[in-house]
């Protein structure tokens, strides 16, 4: 040790200390009795630990321990008691993330909403009006909202402070009165509710949904609205989305993370990826930036944003060439013949110039021998390679319905060996025009490529496989047309060299990764997987991106195989106890059908974003199209889709649907006939064809478990301007004459402040609460009972209160009961019992899917057919509403459970025994309309009902459902659930360790025997068809509008060109601010999911802010920053036609040049100064976005392209946007 003096000194320490100084005098050690450190023991001590979780939109579904001391929640740590996955696999413990770990901060934070609040100016007017109207709250509400001056007074004050405390009594009275007035004056479909992602807390979601559905309001969709719905999933699989649990990544031999940043967006699951590498899994990352996940990848493919389909198409080119043409892989060939539409025949249509285009599937209706069969137009045809004769195989849609199909809806091919290609047996070949859009501006073109053809039933046909090879540019000897000369032919789609110019990924790399993916799949029999997410799914053309991905997994036999296939992880969620949840939330136990609405179209119209379009719907058409969208605006396409019954549209008519029923009754005509007559005569119109008429505005919007204005509302500034009528920073100009809608009325004066009441229930202040008229205080996730599931793991587990709801907060179930009771009280005499005519779109998993043979557009309004409800227009169903009994119905399980049962994905469950069970378990309601029905009064009752009424949590129902399905399919299924037939999960079970669910026909995969969940394993292993036209996975879509867009087959479409569509500056432009432009650099503007928040949740949490940059920021590359003189942490502004954002810059070389990231949903509440550009408070990430609706997402009424809630609909995509980045003054004001 150092010097002797010092040593002597230190040695002396031994005499003064209780501890032992080491012989070498380095250190001291002590034994036992360390009272001085009791502080830390005290700090650690606690009174109890309660199991709960976080009801946040992340699909994490992590079970947590919440620690409580002296009645105060102190902190949380993760549960580690998940049931084992098996001895040779990692486990699910511990699931969680830093966001969840920081949650308890909210409980006592100053952003907590502790009491009900109403904006002062409104509350004052309400009190005065009520006094004027003898204490009648409904008249008081009318007094305010029907007076333009008064209405403007409180609407223009939205979002500008001035909230004052109210009581639950008064706040719920305002809300109830508004509902009564709106229903009476305008109709129940002018009321909307928004609460997303039931799986994260299904009782809380069901609370308001049940109320909205009982009164006849519209629940707004979320999956499509969030742009998380991969439209390719219904298109290809006929399924909303079904994906592997994260534990199944372990089984993959090859894993591509494609636009999915697993450590950030799947934090609790990411370990499966890091661990699977040790098992020899090869991992690829495709990401435009050096994202968190890239560090784990063996290779990083930095494809330019939005060009992913080009890379995937080139990989598909390699797979087709090397594994299907140069050599046939036996595994792949057998797989695609059985499980895909590749061998099915397609008719070719000859155009005037002698060239051909791909047309409709050949069906039994086209064959003389089969034309008279039941549902013949929905039975596709293939050729038997042994006989060369056409065969109508089992399993197509036509077998799913009707008597003849009983026992034949399966994928058994018997002795038939489907011919994949006609090349060997073709009589001739023809040139088919294949659409392409690969120029930088995305302009349409086409090129001729030959396919072998035959004549079958008088039709010139080829197979989907032959068309696919033509599309991908994989030539074969003897076929005419323009083909690539090789992988290095950069001029011909879709070669590896062709994609290099688009994506920036070297050609050789693209080819090699494609080859490796297939090699691994061939060797491992399908264990190649693509994890895909928002990075590739949030684009306008994401359906084509995903179809290019799915081509890779489906060609290589990876779907329905553990460790293989697609793994779509963005917003996908999974309400495992689906049937029970659906009955409660949609109030199907009392009345059917619900009014479920596609939210993107809703806001596109009702926030008047349609008034700012600068291009027609046919801008997107292919050169091979028929001009079906010519002259139409996007709003016109929405209106057409609605009136043909393809998509829902609420408000539906330009008349109160209650009055419409009365009118029909007065006319003595059945309501269906009456409505058709009125529509035909023009006396009745669709609200969606005149959305700016005051009678057609949405009037009430209730939001709970969501932050529409701070998170998901694309076109935020348009919301503020037109929906709310308050200040906004919209900078866009309205659509000029000549480009305006034709069928949709254009009103010269754009409405502002359409909405009369915005009500939000939340536990923290958000952009939505501060713009709301009424804010109700919610219990947090540590203060209530609820259920939680996900598709990332196979367990159901629970929320439990660690403390009772503090201050005046209430659980969502309790809050909505309060509203329902007040509403029923006011409505009983004012509304009474009414009839309500509900317009219902043609619905998936029903025979409605056979309404439009061949997916042909037939518009009754244009005289192309007769308006026939349920065929060429929406079904019209009359529903009785007993408005005085809403609260009573909400609190009890209704009688339709006994008589109609519950239907999920086409399987109907009989529920008599389960209703009896619930009556005993929950107790019966006494008196009133619900006399004797099982109680749903408490949130725990609802949990029990959801669990008892679902196959995944009730083995009796799972087995029953499979037995039902066995009859239709003729294949063995019930054994999948029989191992758990006697297992019924109760709420008490979920309060213990997470409980594994039961294999059920509600989902497509099997957990039987404790295996990992992978979607479509039941389809593959049991030959149960997919819910598509052919019953197989589709490469080809023959609907008119898909053909029009040139998207019959997978195709590359580049990001939208905002310079061409909206006259934004071209990407890369540096403007000096002259000529009236905003100075700065124009860049691609992306809003990926945030590391420090789950959407807007947690972005305001002090822990997350302390670990990040403490406020809104935008990431940009060092090269871009240098162009406009921006340094790290400088204040900058992002400006485009949609709005203005103020943020601080984060400058890093990990960002690609030309693209900035403003991570998702940083909200506007934290450290956002006033913008120089607008003089107003800086906006949020969605201040720069707006809605852009793709016509093909509005297709309905045809096979798998038939509407269901959150299953099909236009997406709220937002990735194609651009913005100018400018350096602003560093002196900011607030």
């Amino acid at each position, binding site marked *: 040790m150092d010097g002797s003096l010092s040593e002597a000194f230190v040695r002396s320490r031994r005499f003064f200390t209780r501890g032992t100084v080491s012989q070498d005098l380095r250190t*001291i050690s002590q034994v036992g009795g360390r009272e001085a450190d009791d502080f830390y023991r005290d700090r650690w001590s606690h009174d109890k630990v309660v199991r709960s979780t976080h009801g946040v939109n992340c699909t994490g579904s992590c079970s947590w321990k919440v620690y409580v001391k002296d009645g105060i929640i102190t902190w949380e740590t*993760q549960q580690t008691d998940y049931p084992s996955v098996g001895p040779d696999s*990692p486990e699910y413990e511990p699931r969680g*993330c830093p966001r969840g770990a920081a949650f308890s901060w909210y409980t006592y934070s100053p952003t907590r909403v502790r009491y009900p609040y109403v904006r002062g100016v409104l509350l004052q007017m309400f009190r005065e009006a009520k006094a004027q109207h003898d204490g009648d709250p409904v008249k008081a509400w009318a007094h305010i909202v029907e007076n333009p001056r008064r209405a403007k007074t409180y609407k223009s004050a939205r979002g500008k402070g001035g909230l004052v405390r109210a009581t639950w009594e008064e706040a719920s009275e305002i809300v109830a009165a508004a509902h009564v007035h709106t229903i009476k004056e305008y109709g129940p479909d002018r009321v909307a509710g928004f609460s997303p992602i039931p799986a994260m807390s299904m009782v809380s979601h069901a609370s308001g949904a049940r109320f909205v559905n009982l009164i006849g309001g519209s629940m707004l969709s979320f999956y499509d609205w969030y742009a998380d719905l991969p439209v390719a999933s219904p298109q290809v699989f006929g399924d909303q989305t079904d994906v592997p649990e994260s534990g199944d990544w372990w089984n993959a031999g090859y894993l591509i993370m494609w636009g999915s940043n697993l450590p950030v967006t799947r934090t609790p699951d990411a370990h499966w990826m890091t661990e*699977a590498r040790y*098992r020899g899994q090869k991992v690829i990352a495709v990401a435009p930036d050096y994202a968190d996940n890239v560090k784990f990848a063996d290779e990083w493919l930095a494809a330019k944003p939005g060009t992913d389909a080009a890379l995937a198409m080139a990989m598909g080119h390699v797979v087709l060439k090397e594994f299907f043409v140069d050599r046939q892989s036996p595994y792949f060939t057998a797989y695609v013949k059985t499980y895909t539409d590749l061998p099915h025949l397609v008719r070719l249509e000859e155009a005037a110039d002698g060239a051909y285009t791909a047309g409709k599937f050949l069906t039994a209706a086209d064959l003389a021998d089969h034309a008279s069969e039941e549902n013949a137009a929905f039975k596709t045809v293939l050729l038997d390679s042994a006989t060369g004769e056409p065969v109508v195989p089992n399993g197509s849609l036509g077998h799913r319905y009707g008597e003849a199909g009983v026992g034949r809806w399966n994928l058994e091919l018997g002795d038939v060996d489907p011919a994949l290609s006609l090349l060997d047996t073709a009589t001739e070949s023809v040139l088919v025009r294949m659409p392409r859009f690969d120029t930088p501006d995305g302009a349409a073109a086409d090129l001729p490529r030959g396919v072998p053809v035959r004549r079958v039933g008088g039709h010139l046909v080829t197979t989907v496989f032959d068309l696919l090879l033509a599309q991908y540019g994989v030539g074969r000897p003897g076929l005419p047309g323009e083909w690539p000369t090789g992988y290095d032919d950069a001029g011909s789609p879709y070669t590896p060299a062709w994609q290099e110019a688009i994506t920036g990924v070297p050609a050789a790399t693209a080819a090699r990764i494609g080859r490796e993916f297939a090699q691994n799949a061939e060797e491992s029999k399908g264990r190649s997987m693509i994890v895909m997410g928002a990075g590739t799914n949030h684009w306008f053309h994401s359906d084509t991106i995903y179809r290019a991905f799915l081509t890779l997994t489906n060609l290589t036999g990876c779907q329905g195989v553990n460790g293989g296939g697609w793994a779509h992880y963005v917003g996908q969620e999974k309400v495992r106890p689906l049937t029970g949840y659906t009955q409660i939330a949609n109030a199907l136990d009392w009345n059917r059908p619900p009014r479920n609405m596609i939210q993107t179209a809703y806001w596109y119209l009702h926030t008047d974003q349609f008034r700012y379009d600068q291009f027609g719907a046919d801008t997107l058409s292919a050169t091979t199209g028929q001009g079906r969208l010519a002259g139409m605006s996007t709003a016109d396409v929405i209106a057409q889709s609605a009136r043909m019954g393809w998509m829902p549209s609420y408000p539906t008519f330009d008349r109160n649907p209650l009055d419409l029923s009365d009118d029909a009754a007065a006319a003595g005509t059945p309501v269906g006939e009456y409505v058709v007559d009125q529509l035909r005569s023009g006396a009745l119109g669709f609200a969606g064809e005149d959305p700016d008429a005051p009678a057609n505005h949405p009037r009430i919007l209730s939001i709970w478990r969501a932050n529409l204005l701070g998170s998901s509302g694309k076109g935020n500034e348009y919301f503020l301007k037109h929906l709310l009528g308050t200040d906004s920073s919209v900078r866009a100009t309205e659509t000029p004459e000549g480009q305006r809608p034709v069928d949709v009325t254009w009103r010269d004066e754009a409405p502002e402040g359409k909405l009369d009441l915005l009500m939000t229930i939340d536990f923290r*202040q958000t952009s939505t609460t501060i713009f709301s008229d009424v804010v109700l205080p919610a219990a947090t996730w540590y203060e209530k009972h609820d259920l939680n599931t996900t598709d990332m793991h196979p367990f159901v587990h629970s929320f439990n209160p660690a403390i009772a709801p503090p201050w005046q907060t209430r659980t969502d179930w309790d809050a909505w009961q309060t509203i329902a009771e007040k509403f029923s009280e006011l409505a009983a005499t004012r509304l009474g019992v009414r009839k309500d005519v509900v317009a219902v779109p043609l619905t998936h998993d029903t025979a409605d899917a056979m309404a439009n043979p061949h997916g042909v557009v037939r518009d009754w309004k244009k005289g192309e057919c007769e308006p026939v409800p349920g065929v060429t227009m929406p079904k019209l169903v009359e529903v009785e509403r007993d408005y005085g009994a809403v609260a009573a119905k909400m609190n009890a399980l209704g009688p339709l459970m006994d008589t109609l049962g519950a239907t999920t994905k086409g399987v109907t469950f009989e529920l008599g025994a389960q209703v009896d069970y619930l009556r005993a378990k929950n107790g019966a309601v006494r008196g009133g309309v619900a006399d004797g029905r099982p109680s749903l009064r408490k949130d725990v009752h609802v949990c029990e009902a959801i669990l008892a009424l679902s196959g995944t949590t009730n083995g009796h129902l799972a087995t029953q459902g499979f037995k039902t399905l066995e009859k239709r399919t003729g294949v063995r299924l019930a054994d999948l659930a029989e191992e758990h037939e006697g297992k019924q999960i109760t709420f008490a079970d979920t309060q213990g360790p997470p409980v594994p669910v039961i294999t059920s026909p509600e989902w497509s995969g099997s957990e039987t025997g404790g295996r990992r969940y992978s979607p479509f394993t039941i389809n593959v292993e049991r030959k149960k068809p997919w819910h598509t036209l052919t019953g197989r996975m589709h490469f080809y879509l023959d609907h008119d509008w898909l053909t029009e867009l040139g998207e019959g087959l997978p195709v590359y479409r580049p990001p939208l060109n905002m310079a061409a569509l909206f006259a934004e500056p071209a990407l890369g432009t540096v403007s000096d601010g002259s000529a009236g432009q905003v100075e700065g650099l124009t860049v691609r503007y992306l809003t990926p999911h945030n590391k420090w928040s789950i959407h807007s949740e947690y972005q305001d949490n002090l822990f997350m802010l302390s670990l990040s940059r403490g*406020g809104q920021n935008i990431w940009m590359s060092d090269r871009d920053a240098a162009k406009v003189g921006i340094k790290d942490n400088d204040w900058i502004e992002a400006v485009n036609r949609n709005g203005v954002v103020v943020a601080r810059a984060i400058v890093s070389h990990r960002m690609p*040049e030309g693209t900035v990231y403003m991570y998702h949903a940083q909200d506007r*509440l934290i450290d956002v100064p006033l913008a120089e550009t607008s003089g107003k408070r800086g906006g949020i990430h969605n201040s720069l976005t707006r809605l852009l609706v793709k016509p093909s997402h509005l297709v309905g009424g045809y096979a798998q392209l038939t509407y269901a809630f959150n299953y099909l609909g236009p997406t709220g995509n937002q990735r194609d946007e651009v913005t100018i980045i400018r350096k602003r003054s560093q002196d900011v004001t607030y």
Partner: protein
Amino acid sequence: MRVMAQMAMVMNLDKCIGCHTCSVTCKQAWTNRSGTEYVWFNNVETRPGLGYPRTYENQEKWKGGWELTKRGRMRLRAGGRLKNLMTIFSNPILPSIGEYYEPWTYDYSTLTDAPAQEHTPVARPKSLISGQNMKIEWSANWDDDLGGATETAHRDPMLAKIADKVKFEFEQTFMFYLPRICEHCLNPSCAASCPSGAIYKREEDGIVLVDQDKCRGWRKCVSGCPYKKVYFNHRTGKAEKCTFCFPRIEVGLPTVCAETCVGRLRYIGLVLYDADKVLEAASTPDDTGLYEAQREVFLDPFDPEVVRAAEQAGIARDWVDAAQRSPIHALINTYKVALPLHPEYRTMPMVWYIPPLSPVVDVVAETGEDAEDTGNLFAAIDALRIPVEYLAELFTAGDVAPVDAVLKRLAAMRCYMRDINLGRDPDASIPAAVGMSEEEMYDMYRLLAIAKYDERY
């Protein structure tokens, strides 16, 4: 031989996803209180990066840890202990709050309470030190995910030594995460720096604690700790540090940071060491010899002599048993994949790290060779996206050989297991190439990949 037991941790950086859950759960449990707003017993740094507090690794500046005198004797870098004592009233080498970060909150209540006004209410940041409005210029994790910010990367002390190896270009971006807690050193310089004798190692498990009664707030420990893992509570005026969650460890629970680690990358276990050898090992002349020297201090818990000596030293049988099944022992001594953090500080740290491997295959692919071929993989490690030299600066005082050996073992494990995964015959030559048997490699794979709860702790 004087057998002592030490509770130790290994973190597998190759699995760290940089999520910071460990930081949050630790902070919530331990330092979520006034006086410790800026304190993170556990923090996670993005490397390259400046660390927390900034540039703490620059011992030229901060004078933490030990150094050898010309005569080869150990001395606190901050100066001999007498000098240390003489300067207790003015400690010039203490990081300022700005080097950590100025903690703040927001006036959240304005969101609810704002009167009717022209603009949307907004919560502005307020310093928790001064109470004033502030512009946020640094945080607990400011350079997260930057891979070295353009503005600050050149100040990363570890980069200074290998500047020619690293370019801050998009195509060459690399980064990884470094979670850090107190090292609970065998030779703690914080304890040696404390004029009050308030810092001690627990006899039974070696956990280093600050006696809250004896601490007089001189802050010499803050200076003395080269990892800057002792903090000053400005409210109580005492030093505080990571306690290795001793109230949990004592009842058989892992530390909060370990149990809540969703990357499942933390291992906790007991290590037996020979206390008589510590000084000699810490005095190893060459910095690059310190890694091996520290391993030499550890005792083989299966050696009957060690077991006997442990018994004589009063170490209970179940503790010896724990040392035998310790994942720490396996990772450090059996598989030799874990390395100490900055052994050159000579404190004999007891939180060790498995260096990050990836990505590796793209380097091979660029050469046009088969990336799955073992030989090619090994060759590629020299050209890793993360420069081996950077890792060596962190873990082996700049000696790339031990880092190289670890990375080769990890790469070999992946190759070996891929054959098994795909149902091929396993290739014994792969483990042999890195000096392991097939069984050893398979067992290592299970410990690193399957890593069940009761095998991690």
